[in-house]
């Protein structure tokens, strides 16, 4: 697109969303889109668990908590991985390569799943 002036004034709502969508599609590297798909999956899984809990009550509360917190923590770790692997952020993360970020991601997930499986009862 040739810059904001050519598209001014933006129709609120529709134009902003479509502009955001186009920019996301064209400017985001493929790896980040892969991580974004993963984040969306995690979030939907968390929402479904929450809806189930609202419907049938919290009886094995530890199970609900462990499942839900597993999704939340996975989401957070995914966001961290995305932030650290974004090439636009290399100035902020000077000493952390993408591989290092990925290794941290894997390690944190191992610990997370051990704890979650212990708590799920």
């Amino acid at each position, binding site marked *: 697109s040739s810059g904001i002036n050519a598209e001014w004034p933006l129709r609120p709502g529709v134009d902003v969303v479509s502009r955001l969508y186009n920019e996301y599609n064209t400017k985001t590297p493929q790896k980040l889109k892969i991580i974004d*798909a993963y984040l969306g999956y995690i979030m939907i899984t968390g929402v479904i668990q929450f809806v189930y809990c609202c419907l049938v009550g919290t009886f094995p509360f530890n199970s609900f908590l462990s499942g839900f917190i597993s999704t939340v923590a996975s989401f957070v770790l995914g966001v961290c991985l995305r932030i650290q692997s974004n090439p636009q952020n290399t100035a902020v993360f000077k000493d952390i390569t993408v591989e290092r970020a990925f290794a941290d991601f894997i390690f944190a997930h191992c610990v997370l*799943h051990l704890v979650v499986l212990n708590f799920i009862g």
Partner: protein
Amino acid sequence: KQWYQRRVAITAGDFSLADGAEEVTLHQVFVRFTNTKTKQNVFFIAQADLKKKYTIDLNFRSAAAKSFGSVGGQYSVDLIVGDATLPQAMVIDVATLNLEIPDSKEPAADLSKQAKPEITHLFRQPEKRPPQAISAVFTGLVLLPALVLLIMWAKLGANISNIQISLSSIGFHGGLLAIIAIYVNFFLGVNMFTTVKCLAGVAVVTFLCGQRLLSSIAAAKKAK
């Protein structure tokens, strides 16, 4: 001896306790009335005043109902004396009285030796669980996004074409699969101690292989 139905204090017969020639106050001084027929005991504590004279204050009209249970008859009166300095408590037989109580009742039947009513234990009711159908539906529903994720990844072009078949690569990915298998075992009931023991070995291997593998990838990227 007969009691009069009026307020009687045994000041007429107040007593004092003597150790040799000296009057003493002791810790425990009780007067016990024992019904000779039912063997029921009624205790009164004797208080010492400043002159070391003991009395029991027996308002017979109220005590008849309250303490004696309105049971008349023959009572033997004992004085029970106990103290830390005495090697043994003393029970001194003082008198035998015949108590005439106007509305004398029969002594109440002693229920304490009979069997109590039977209690059946109520076990804790299990909590209400949702019907199996709903749980099954939601289990499926939760696994569905994983399929969606795989489809989206395929659409985005995610692939593993860059994988190198080196020792560290096999070690790393194999180690991760082994960790997943250990976790599945843990979920199926192996206890935490065994799990952590297995995990320790596999974790070290996975870590070393992973470090080598990722370093080599980073170096290759830098060289590009």
